[in-house]
């Protein structure tokens, strides 16, 4: 009870200031400035680490001192001013970068925004580059991120809902969706799951992703994370929902299907022939990345007669000197590649090239010359590694890389049958998986072939008259007769 009583400003400047200081643990970056105005004592309090001294000068001090007679709140630009009645509210404004003004005899505390913002520029995200199309990317500032999306969709249906989660970090989270498109149930479901999060700290969107995922034990990511505003925009316009969090340059998009991870804005930025071709290449890469080493093991250890005669001579020549069974050989190389990858990411960029050279020459050549690994295996692993990096989404790439090891083990125990069994299990799992009520493997698992238009291949824009149904949007038509100027017979 005493706490609540002291929460209300007393009107004594000194005592209130002391109370606020106490609430903020006498932090050294809390600045207090006194000055007199019309014989009243005025105290300004602010964090010098959160505020901008120039804007304090221009937006707070100057207006107050230039109009001596007026009430403080009247002197200031209205948009940035709010008045609070409790000390704890005042502290939370302080933490947001406001300046609070304490006046003798006044129980209202005036808070004036004077935030300093150190944001990096909205550069293109390094790990999601495109050839053509927008080159801006999300940054760590939530407001800027929402701004980027709002700029692309100037529509009153674009709804932004803020939540604050993380008991200690007080992370702001924004849910973005098109009110007339997005499925209400998906939005409500997400709201429910966000509010269920009872964690002390939420650092970035990945924390949220783990808390809200449908099947956390699945190797496949069920929310699509992206750093590209154009990707978010395109998904919002298909009736999906995006989640942004302060301090994270990533947006989470849901509900998504497996094939969304194999799409890139480049598909739409290039012509549709090229877009379709890239998509097919990526889907082929999925199979290569997941099963190529396994196929090698199964062939060399079980069914080498499926190889053509000329090839078998070359393969036998290179594996004859290798001292291990194929599985061990494959593991050695796979783990080496993962080591190179991991080292390459962590190393400062001038050294990254050195790793590339060491990896390429030492591992690629010396290992073969020392007959530790056959050169066919090196080729297999290299192609597999490249195929795994073709996936536009990093999370999916990781999933694929991990699954590969399972495939390799099953191929080493059961041969080609093992590969078939693994693929069967994978297919069963993919068909059973759901992302916020949407079948994950749609349209292949649902059999709604109409949706193939924008999954495995990319049809021309004017052929895709309706939105993909996997996100269950409220309105299906996204395009009507855009090529109406064409005579009827040449239009389909």
């Amino acid at each position, binding site marked *: 009870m005493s706490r609540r009583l002291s929460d209300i400003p007393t009107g004594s400047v000194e005592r209130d200031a002391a109370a606020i200081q106490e609430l903020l643990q006498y932090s050294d970056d809390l600045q207090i400035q006194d000055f007199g105005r019309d014989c009243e004592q005025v105290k300004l309090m602010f964090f010098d680490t959160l505020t901008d001294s120039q804007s304090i000068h221009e937006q707070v001090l100057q207006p107050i001192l230039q109009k001596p007679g007026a009430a403080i709140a009247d002197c200031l630009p209205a948009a940035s001013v709010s008045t609070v009645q409790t000390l704890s509210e005042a502290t939370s404004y302080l933490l947001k970068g406001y300046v609070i003004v304490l006046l003798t005899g006044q129980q209202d505390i005036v808070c004036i925004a004077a935030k300093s913002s150190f944001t990096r520029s909205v550069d293109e995200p390094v790990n999601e580059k495109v050839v053509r199309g927008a080159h801006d990317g999300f940054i760590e500032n939530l407001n800027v991120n929402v701004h980027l999306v709002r700029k692309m969709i100037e529509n009153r249906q674009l709804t932004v809902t803020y939540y604050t989660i993380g008991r200690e970090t007080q992370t702001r989270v924004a849910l973005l969706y098109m009110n007339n498109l997005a499925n209400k149930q998906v939005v409500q479901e997400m709201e429910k799951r966000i509010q269920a999060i009872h964690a002390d700290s939420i650092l970035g969107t990945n924390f949220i992703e783990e808390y809200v995922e449908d099947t956390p034990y699945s190797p496949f990511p069920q929310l699509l994370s992206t750093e590209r505003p154009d990707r978010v925009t395109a998904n919002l316009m298909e009736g999906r929902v995006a989640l942004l969090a302060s301090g994270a340059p990533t947006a989470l998009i849901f509900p998504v299907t497996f094939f969304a991870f194999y799409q890139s804005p480049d598909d739409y930025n290039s012509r549709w022939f090229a877009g379709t071709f890239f998509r097919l290449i990526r889907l082929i890469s999925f199979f290569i990345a997941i099963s190529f080493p396994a196929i090698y093991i199964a062939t060399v*250890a079980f069914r080498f007669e499926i190889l053509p005669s000329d090839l078998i*001579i070359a393969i036998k020549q290179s594996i004859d000197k290798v001292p291990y069974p194929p599985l061990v050989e494959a593991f050695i190389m796979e783990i080496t590649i993962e080591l190179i990858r991991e080292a390459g990411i962590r190393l400062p960029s001038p050294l990254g090239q050195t790793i590339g050279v060491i990896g390429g020459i030492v591992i690629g050549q010396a290992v073969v010359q020392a007959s530790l690994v056959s050169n066919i295996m090196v080729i297999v692993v290299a192609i597999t590694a490249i195929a795994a990096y073709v996936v536009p989404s990093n999370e999916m790439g990781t999933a694929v890389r991990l699954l590969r090891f399972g495939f390799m083990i099953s191929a080493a125990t059961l041969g080609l049958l093992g590969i078939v069994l693994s693929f069967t299990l994978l297919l069963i799992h993919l068909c059973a998986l759901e992302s916020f009520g949407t079948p994950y493997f749609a349209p292949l698992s649902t059999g709604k072939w109409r949706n193939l238009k924008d999954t495995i291949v990319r049809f021309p824009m004017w052929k895709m008259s309706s939105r993909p149904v996997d996100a269950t949007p409220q309105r299906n038509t996204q395009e009507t007769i855009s090529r109406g100027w064409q005579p009827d017979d040449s239009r389909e």
Partner: protein
Amino acid sequence: MKPSLFAAGILALLFLSGCWDQRILKDRNLIICIGRDLAEEGKIQNSFALLTPAIKQTSSPSSSQQPGSGAVSGKQKNVISAVGDTINQTAMMMDRKTSETVDDSKNQAVLIGEKLARLDLYSTLDLLYRDPMGELKAKVAVVKGEAKQLMEHIAARDPLVGSYLVELLESQVERRIIPEATLQSIYPSLLEHGEDLIIPYLGLVDGEPAVIGSVLTHDKKMTGTLTPDESLLSMMFSKFDLKGARINQRIGGDEKLRTLGYISFLVGNVKRKMDVKVESSSSQSIIVDLHAKLKVTVVEYPHNQLNTEAKFNELNRKLSNQLTKDAEKVLHKLQEARCDFYGVGRQIMAFHPETWKKLDWDKDFSRISFRPRVEVEIKGTGLIH
């Protein structure tokens, strides 16, 4: 049962079963060519050309080229052989001689010595065909003399005996000298009544391994041979493609330069027709009309005077006559060998079953009369492709 226990059980089943059905490629000695010969006392001589020693030879050319004596004599032998009562027995004998387990799943060619071929082809190929791991695409050929000798001969120049033979045979199939003959195509047809086979015939020409024609078979064994030219002509009426065959034909008189008397042409499309006429049930009354219409392109004609319609017609007529005459000789040879290459027997079986019952085809085949007619039509004289 607890799910964790269940999972552990499944995993144990998976991993503890081990690698019982593994066939690791690097521990296998692949057979690339199989040779079968008749040895003394009716025994079988079985020869394998192996891949592992071949690889060792090709992968270290520097060591084999070193002017030392020990290296060559100490080299692992490429072609090994064993003599035994059964094929299986010889295979086991050879397995004992080799460093790794022998494996015939990538066998590329099967060679059969002429002596053995004259006795029986069927039992020789039987084991290869019924082996579930066996390679059915392996080429089959009969060897003049001993198969083992030919294999050793090839091995001396190219350790990869199998691919050498495959390429040799395929190039001649391309030239339409011999029909395509693989284990898959040969073996089932050996049992066929009313139709016989032609198999490639290999031998040494001036010390070079070469296709020396084809072998006529009848009733599961070899009954005669054809020269390459005859072999090509025999294919003219068969189901095998003749497109791309090159024929040299003598048409001129006695020019000083022999080349001037010849024409050489490339066969394009061939239209063929076989008509089996049965008038009465006696074998003499069976007449087989064979008709082949060839569209050809002249490749070499030294007179270089193919410019008038009349010249064309004259050449067409000459060539048709000559080829018909040659075909008659070939057909005679086929009849001598009782090799019913065109499946006349099967036609009679199907359309004249009453007659078939009365015939003794083994003997009667040589008594029926063939009436071949070859028509040549020169279509092009221009570019040689």
